[in-house]
């Protein structure tokens, strides 16, 4: 017994020593960055700093920003510069990584009228829900909002009030393997869904001979918000509407049914059966490990694929997503906005912070150092920005954007989106669209009526 205790103690000491030595040794090795070469750009200085300092210097605001990681590091760097120039102390709190947890955190604070949050980072579909609790930014930031993408500004304007400023913009892209297209004799990426399915089948059949895990086309098919984004692209590009148009649910129409059934028929053929559990992460893994010919994903995947150690480095590119017959290519808008809480005790200082963060200089900084998609269209012409974010080339950057119908649904957006993605997930799992869509449409109409 005496010896056993000694042995266990030795074990504990050993583990601690091992761990400590590991950290020392590993400290020397460089971290393989999956993203881009960050040119040493410093956080931009705050314009008009002296005037702001005079008016609001010494005040303290809390900014609920990006989750722990590189996003938080960027926020902290910008906040530090802002504090240095204007004397307004900014306390940066990262929001939870999971989107619904971030939503609950804000919702709870707002419903309790808490003054603990001054500036909040909100998803592109949340302005409708949070509008009653946010300050109207139009008087002070209306002019600045004009340099941002009109579509996003429109989606941030609820009942005439500009409740949030666009900060990052995301949009759907078609990633494709340039080497495989060449190998199988295709000169350019597909422009229609049927073309995509044909090309995917041919490439998959060829590649599966050497790689049984190869799939033609992967996307986000899990029962979650991402599916609402993916399906909106399918339906809108086929001329099937935007789930809700002009205040009425339109999801149950022939064009929508056709395109959904077409995608459903590919599951198990050119799309793996497990795609109904895929989120962004699994899609990215499939493509970047060389196991997919086509993938639909957000711009973030570009940096990973082009990074050191990626199996598809130099072998892929992006294109607008295909469209249905008679339709045109679209991309679902994602991304984040900055809003000021109505219960903030320092609204003026908070608005100045938002002005800084959504300025062209800062968005440029964000795009270069952290590959955040800017919401200012003129930045797509900036050479450094495009160098670090190649998906901003005109062909893809100018694709028509479609927004999810959060404006009509306001606080019920989550419930409506759930009805949509649960229904579409059911279709992908094998049920024909004609049996599912009527139910989804009536549920959406019922929710719309609750206003």
């Amino acid at each position, binding site marked *: 017994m005496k010896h056993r205790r000694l042995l266990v103690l030795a074990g504990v000491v050993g583990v601690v020593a091992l761990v400590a030595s590991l950290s020392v040794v590993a400290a020397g090795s460089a971290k393989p960055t999956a993203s881009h070469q960050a040119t040493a750009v410093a956080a931009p200085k705050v314009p008009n700093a002296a005037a702001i300092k005079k008016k609001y210097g010494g005040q303290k605001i809390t900014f609920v920003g990006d989750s722990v990681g590189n996003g938080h590091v960027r926020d902290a760097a910008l906040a530090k510069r802002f504090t240095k120039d204007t004397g307004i102390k900014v306390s940066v709190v990262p929001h939870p990584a999971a989107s*619904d947890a971030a*939503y*609950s955190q804000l*919702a709870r604070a*707002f*419903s309790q009228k808490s003054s603990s949050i001054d500036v909040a980072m909100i998803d592109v579909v949340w302005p409708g*829900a*949070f509008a*009653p*609790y946010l300050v109207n930014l139009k008087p002070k930031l209306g002019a600045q909002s004009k340099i941002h993408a009109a579509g996003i500004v429109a989606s941030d304007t609820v009942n005439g009030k500009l409740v949030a400023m666009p900060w990052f913009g995301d949009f759907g892209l078609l990633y494709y393997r340039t080497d495989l297209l060449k190998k199988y004799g295709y000169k350019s990426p597909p422009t229609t869904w049927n073309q995509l399915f044909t090309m995917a089948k041919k490439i998959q059949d060829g590649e599966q001979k050497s790689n049984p*895990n190869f799939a033609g086309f992967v996307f986000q098919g*899990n*029962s*979650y918000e991402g599916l609402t984004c993916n399906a909106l692209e399918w339906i809108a590009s086929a001329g099937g509407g935007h789930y809700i148009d002009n205040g009425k649910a339109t999801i149950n129409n022939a064009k929508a049914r056709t395109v959904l059934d077409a995608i459903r028929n590919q599951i198990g053929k050119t799309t*793996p*059966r*497990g795609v*109904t*559990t895929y989120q962004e992460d*699994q899609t990215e*893994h*499939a493509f970047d490990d060389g*196991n997919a010919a086509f993938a639909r994903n957000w711009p973030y995947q570009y940096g990973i694929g082009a990074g050191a150690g990626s199996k598809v480095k130099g072998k892929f590119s992006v294109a607008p997503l295909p469209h249905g017959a008679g339709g045109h290519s679209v991309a679902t808008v994602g991304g984040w906005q900055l809003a000021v809480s109505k219960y903030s005790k320092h609204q003026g200082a908070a608005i100045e912070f938002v002005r800084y963060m959504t300025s062209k200089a800062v968005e440029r900084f964000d795009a270069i150092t952290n590959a955040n998609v800017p919401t200012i269209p003129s930045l797509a012409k900036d050479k450094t920005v495009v160098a670090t974010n190649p998906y901003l080339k005109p062909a893809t950057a100018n694709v028509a954007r479609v927004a999810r119908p959060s404006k009509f649904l*306001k*606080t*019920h957006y*989550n*419930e409506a989106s*759930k009805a949509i*993605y*649960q229904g579409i*997930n*059911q279709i992908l*799992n094998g049920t024909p669209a004609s049996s599912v869509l009527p139910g989804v449409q009536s549920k959406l109409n019922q929710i719309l009526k609750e206003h």
Partner: protein
Amino acid sequence: MSSVAQPAPSRRRRRRHTKLQRRQTRIGWVLLIPSLAVVAFVAIYPLGKTVYQSFTNAEFLAGITPTKWVGLENYRTLWHDTVFRHSVVETIKFTAITVSFEFVLGLIIALVVNSHFRGRGVMRAVMLVPWAIPTVVAAKIWQWMLDDTYGVVNDLLMKAHIISHPHAWVADPATSLASVCAVDIWKTTPFVALLLLAGLQVIPNDLYEAAGVDGANALQQFWRITFPLLRPAILVTLVFRTLDALRVFDVFYVFFGQRPDTQTMAIYAQSTIVGDGHVGYGAAISVAIFLIISLFVVIYVTFMRVTEE
């Protein structure tokens, strides 16, 4: 369960009024003060508020619509709610499978650790591993292992020629419940094993020695000595395991998210309150969950009382 200390029979006639009984009652309640204080603060207020909310139309982000009393309307809607009914069935299926497997497995492990079997020290350490990993992380690891492309489970099964091509364990509705049960059993068997082990350790060794001398074999010893003396521990374990299984959330959330066909009662409550924002209706769901689980408790208690006689 053996009864507690009783006053001598001669005093029983005037039990309620004897000084001893009054003293017992007083001390008994005084000792309970800390627990009751905790209950009052962290349980009664929130539970009371939830019950109250179930009679209103409270919303998470009320905005301009005021919260008002709606009486039993939430409950009426709940009665016709097929999604809720389905979630109740799912939860009960899950509970039945996991509690039975965990009980058998946990009992085996407890018996092994309690015996003079050679590998018991290692078994004791091994038994703690599933438990030390946080539930959400464990669920993600299992999700990865069961994946149809990158999952090691499929890879091993194919190498052993048990299946011919990878199976989407989590995605396929036929095996989704089995996969989530496998994870929960893995994670919570240590809980059961530990409780049963504690119960085993208080059984005196002399009983076994005497039985051995009288010629009883291992199986007879188990049925005649171990099982009866272990009964209190078994019942407490089963009650708490069943309660936990009926409220299961984490594993299902990581595996299935908002997938409609695999919702448990707790997931449905969560998605109604936080996702849809219907706090009042969600409170009604919670009260319904409370009543359903209480039903199970009543069944267990009746069973305990009946078998005691």
